[in-house]
């Protein structure tokens, strides 16, 4: 292609590059916000950047990050999962019940080993996740309603398991052969808390699925244009069910980790966690309309929220103000997101020109 650059072309190109920069900054906004927060808090609170504090921070972040990772898949298809907080509560209670009450089989109480406890807990939560997926994908219930329903169901079930009481002493007993549960939330590997390892490996796995597998691409496809996805032969219901399964699995892990950290299972655990997770996902640049977003974005979003709340606590900001600030950040994030999409649509012609140049 012979190119003679006209003056107009050159200014176009200049405009193009600055638009690209602007769009890039907007897209990567969560990273910038995170860096700004880190700088701000380490300047204001000297103890903020200590190893000890960072370990605590990372444990807090792990909880919302794990939920956000699962939630990202759901949101990418254009859905939402409100049940994850309740599900985390239910997961903890199932584990607590099995560890302290055991299973009655033929009149004899069996205490399953910790590994089995964890597997049963995960399965119970996966059943609820499947229910969510089935309701959304097959029964055609709106995701908001379906998961609002399971939010109540899971919370109710958690309360029913103990009549609203807490299951204490989850450390287990040697005699029952079910010790070791506290390791899940409390032990460390190479100086890094186990929950953080869990978060990191989930992150790696989720990212791999999202970017490198057909399944991940189908998730994006369903969120981008569900009708078109169906027409090209993508099994839309199956994809949706997968996303709710992933989300519920993450919720179960969070429930287990919290119960393990506290060595107790309380039925109210996880209240409003779903909102933190959704906030992290949105902050990370995932569109609630589906089709656009990423797993790393959600991880960064979770860090933003975690750093923000821990930092504010260290600065002694009152809990009430913390809520106001957190809410403002979330609303601002979505407003910026809208701005970004509008700019993108507006400058589409510029971006298109570039494409036709590329074709030769």
């Amino acid at each position, binding site marked *: 292609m012979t190119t003679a650059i006209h003056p107009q072309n050159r200014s176009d190109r200049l405009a193009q590059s600055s638009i690209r920069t602007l769009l890039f900054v907007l897209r990567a906004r969560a990273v910038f916000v995170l860096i700004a927060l880190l700088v701000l808090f380490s300047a204001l609170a000297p103890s903020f950047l200590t190893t000890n504090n960072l370990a605590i921070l990372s444990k807090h972040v792990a909880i919302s990050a794990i939920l956000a990772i699962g939630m990202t898949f759901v949101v990418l298809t254009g859905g939402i999962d409100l049940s994850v907080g309740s599900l985390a509560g239910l997961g903890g209670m199932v584990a607590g019940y099995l560890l302290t009450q055991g299973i009655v089989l033929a009149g004899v109480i069996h205490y399953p080993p910790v590994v089995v406890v964890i597997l049963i807990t995960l399965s119970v939560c996966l059943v609820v996740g499947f229910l969510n997926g089935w309701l959304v994908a097959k029964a055609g219930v709106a995701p908001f309603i379906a998961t609002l329903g399971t939010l109540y169901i899971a919370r109710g079930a958690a309360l029913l398991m103990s009549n609203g009481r807490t299951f204490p002493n989850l450390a287990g007993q040697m005699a029952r052969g079910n010790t070791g549960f506290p390791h899940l939330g409390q032990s460390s590997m190479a100086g890094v808390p186990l929950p953080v390892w869990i978060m990191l490996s989930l992150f790696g796995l989720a990212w791999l699925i999202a970017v490198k597998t057909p399944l991940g691409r189908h998730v994006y496809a369903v969120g981008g244009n569900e*009708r078109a996805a169906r027409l*090209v*032969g993508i099994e839309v219901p199956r994809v949706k069910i997968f996303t709710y399964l992933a989300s519920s699995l993450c919720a179960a892990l969070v429930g287990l980790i919290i119960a393990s950290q506290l060595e107790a299972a309380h039925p109210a655990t996880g209240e409003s966690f779903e909102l933190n997770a959704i906030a992290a996902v949105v902050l990370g640049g995932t569109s609630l309309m589906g*089709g656009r977003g990423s797993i790393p974005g959600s991880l960064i979003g979770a860090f933003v929220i975690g750093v923000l709340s821990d930092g504010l606590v260290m600065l002694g900001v009152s809990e009430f103000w913390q809520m106001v600030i957190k809410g403002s950040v979330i609303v601002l994030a979505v407003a910026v997101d809208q701005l970004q999409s509008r700019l993108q*649509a507006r400058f*589409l012609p510029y971006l*298109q020109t570039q494409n*036709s140049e*590329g*074709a030769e």
Partner: protein
Amino acid sequence: MNEVAEDVILEARAITKRYPGTLALDAVTMRVYRNQVNVLIGENGAGKSTLMRILAGVETADGGELLLEGELIRIRSPREAASLGISIVHQELSVLPNLDISENVFAGREPVRAAVLLDRPTEDARSARALTSLRKPMQVRTKTAQLSLGCRQIVEVARTLDQGARVLILDEPTSALSSIETDSLFQVIQDLKRSGVTIIYISHRLHELLHLGDWFTVLRSGRIVGHSPRIEVSRNWIVERMSGRAVSETADDRPSLVDAPILLAANEITLGTSGADEASQALLHAVTFTLRRGEILGIYGLLGAGRTELLESLAGARRLLGGSILVNGIQAHISTVSDAVKRGIVLVPEDRQRDGLIPDLSIRENIAIGSMRGIWLSRADQMAHVRRLTKELNIVARDLELPVTSLSGGNQQKVIIARCLMRNPALLLLDEPTRGVDVGAKAEIYTILRRLAAKGIGILFTSSEIEETRALADRALVLCQGRISAEFSRNEITDEALFAAASPVVNTAPIPSSGVQFA
């Protein structure tokens, strides 16, 4: 006999498809000849798309059978159809806008390495190869949201090619394309034909069909009414079969309207891009026209010419960027729908399912919905009005309390018209007044509109059908890329004139996004 039978690659036998309220396909038998461009013609709602959706596995037939290479086949999903070598490019493009080109080409059938991981290099290479063979090399990592409609369509064709399509169905492929894009698509079709692909081509643009087609099948109201090779086909042959008698019946006794007072004057109406939806980039540039009381004014134009936008801006559903509207000689500021209604302007929208009907409500409620005034609903009052209108418009319903969805397309359309008449309009705007309506109801709607015009109501309708414009309009304007490109009085309206005025002139403006470059 034997020879002919061998030439048939795909045969649909006695295919029947029912939708609630309509028989979309009535024992349709269609033969598709190998290595030919098999044209399927019919008006909107004739059943073309339904038949093709059945061949492509998107829908299943209620009766009949499909034969591929003489063997009975069952197609239950798009994937099954594709594996048999039957692929479709849908009328409403089905690209995934948030994915890039090669992701789109392989959506739903991704090649994998190590059992689970996507094989990007293979995808990119094969996508690039398919695009090159379509003479449209593009960067395969470009997001399809950034492509023009023509390029998106090529992406879909590339997908079918890579799937090894033997039979490629193109459903109204040119309806959204510029003429440059259309030309390059025709080239692609010729190439495909040469390389051994059988094409089924759906359109209702006669000149395209006559240019491309080898075999012609005409569908009307769910029945095959003609099937012939190119040499036996003429423009008249098609028009006769396509429209039947009902449509060509025109009213010659229309009164002269030169002296009627001017009801509506649109002065240089200009409309900006609608940023929200990438597909609708249609603009209106200084559109000026007048409409007299009792006149039926038709606006003909291709998809994307700005027809819908023009009507919507008159109805207050879009805000003007410039220009003015005069109603009865008085400047009218129409910025909301109720502004328009106050001045007696009401719109019958193009897509009655989406923008018109409220499916859960009864026929009566659907008619009365726009006219509820005051605090209390007087049912008796309402009922009297509704009854009068249903009688006047001949809405055939067993019971007015049945849900509106129980009606046929034609009757549903009459319900929308009745709703508009409840408001005693001075000007009735109709966007594609007979879309998805059978031939009988079509003629009836024309009669109704003429009767309304005779009462002094101004009628402004848009159409993408030449036949309709000719049958109904006292005067026709042609919109092309947002500008009025021609005006015809009743006896000047001909197919050729309308079509020529509606087709964009080549090379007037560069199309920034198409990326058309032949190697």
